[in-house]
């Protein structure tokens, strides 16, 4: 009797110890895996390359009606504040509501700069201020932007806006100023930090419990975004324009 209960206890103890050892091993290994990731990351003095192509995958089925967490997250991160009314207020992300006339299905999605591989805004810029970084991020060099707004006209997504008023208290890592055009930067300051950080909109969306926005490297087949695109696809808006956008949508 006592012998059987002892073996039973022994078994339980062995199983427990075995699992603890397994846990300890994993806990010990996991930081090692992270170190490999850090070693692959670019250092501050290295230029970006086309080894990466940063992008977003937006699942419009997960995007909740009436939620604007991504817009608020973006505004907070980049120091965008309302000032002189909706006509001139900065807006890097717009929430677009789609309604299918036949089925009556209504869904919403965040629309920001689509970070095209063939950006029309870059084609039309007379000064070279509008440019595409090697890693696929489309930006405005505000040092050389003259505020002509040709790029705003050329963008089929209406993603760019113009700063009409003098600004104060900008964020140190997101300079913005009157007389220049601006748009979503894919939180380039976070990407350059290189600590596996995601964009402010994706972070805010996840914090709101929706996880509709996935950020990552489309060129890395092991990344979450590349795997999700491989499995579920991901439509490009206005694919007929053949701009090869870096922002993809599901459920549109």
């Amino acid at each position, binding site marked *: 009797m006592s012998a059987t209960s002892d073996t039973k206890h022994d078994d339980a103890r062995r199983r427990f110890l075995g699992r603890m050892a397994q846990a300890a091993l994993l806990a010990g290994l996991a930081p090692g895996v992270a170190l490999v990731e850090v070693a692959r990351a670019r250092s501050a003095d290295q230029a970006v390359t086309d080894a990466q192509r940063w992008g977003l995958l937006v699942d419009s089925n997960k995007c909740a009606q009436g939620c604007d967490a991504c817009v608020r997250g973006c505004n907070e991160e980049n120091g965008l504040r309302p000032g002189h009314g909706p006509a001139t207020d900065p807006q890097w992300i717009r929430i677009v509501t789609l309604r299918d006339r036949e089925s009556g299905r209504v869904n919403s999605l965040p629309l920001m700069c689509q970070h095209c591989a063939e950006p029309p805004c870059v084609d039309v810029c007379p000064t070279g201020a509008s440019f595409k970084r090697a890693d696929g991020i489309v930006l405005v060099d505000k*040092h050389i932007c003259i505020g002509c707004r040709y790029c705003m006209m050329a963008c089929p997504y209406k993603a760019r806006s113009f700063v009409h008023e003098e600004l104060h208290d900008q964020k140190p890592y997101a300079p913005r100023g009157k007389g220049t055009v601006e748009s979503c930067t894919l939180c380039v300051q976070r990407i350059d930090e290189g600590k596996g950080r995601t964009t402010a909109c994706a972070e805010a969306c996840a914090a709101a419990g929706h996880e509709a926005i996935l950020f990552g490297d489309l060129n890395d087949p092991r990344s979450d975004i590349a795997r999700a695109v491989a499995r579920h696809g991901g439509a490009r808006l206005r694919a007929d324009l053949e701009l090869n956008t870096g922002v993809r949508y599901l459920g549109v």
Partner: protein
Amino acid sequence: MRLIRITRGAGLGLLLLASTGLSMASESRVPLPDIVKASGAQCVEPNAVMRRDHMRFLYHQRTQTVHRGIRTKRYSLRVCIACHAARDPEGQAIPVNAPGQFCSSCHAYAGVRIDCFECHATTPEKRAGGAAATVKQGLSGWVGRIKKTVTKVLEGSPP
């Protein structure tokens, strides 16, 4: 004799010039820039080099950063401001372009307009939102992941 008189006159003139020069420095019509002391011990280049060439360093760095994503700290405007912004008695950072502050005092003297601060922040970033927060975020992420692994293993399911 005449020669002596000339030298004496020249000496007097020099003395006068020196004294006027001195009075210009102390109570001149155009006040000399009052350079606000930075919080660091030594700038990234010798002071004489910085006075002459700081705009060249910044100009080079801005292109490197915006177009190539190179964010080294040495000539970064953000790091300049972090060191050169003075603090008021309450410990709040004073904008570097406020009258009499580090950037504006020299630029007012030289009569050169600065464009930097139409877009760039003039005070260092608040500590809470800076690097410390990132580290904290990263750490809490790690702790969460390890906890998750341990619970999964204890429950007997493969992690």
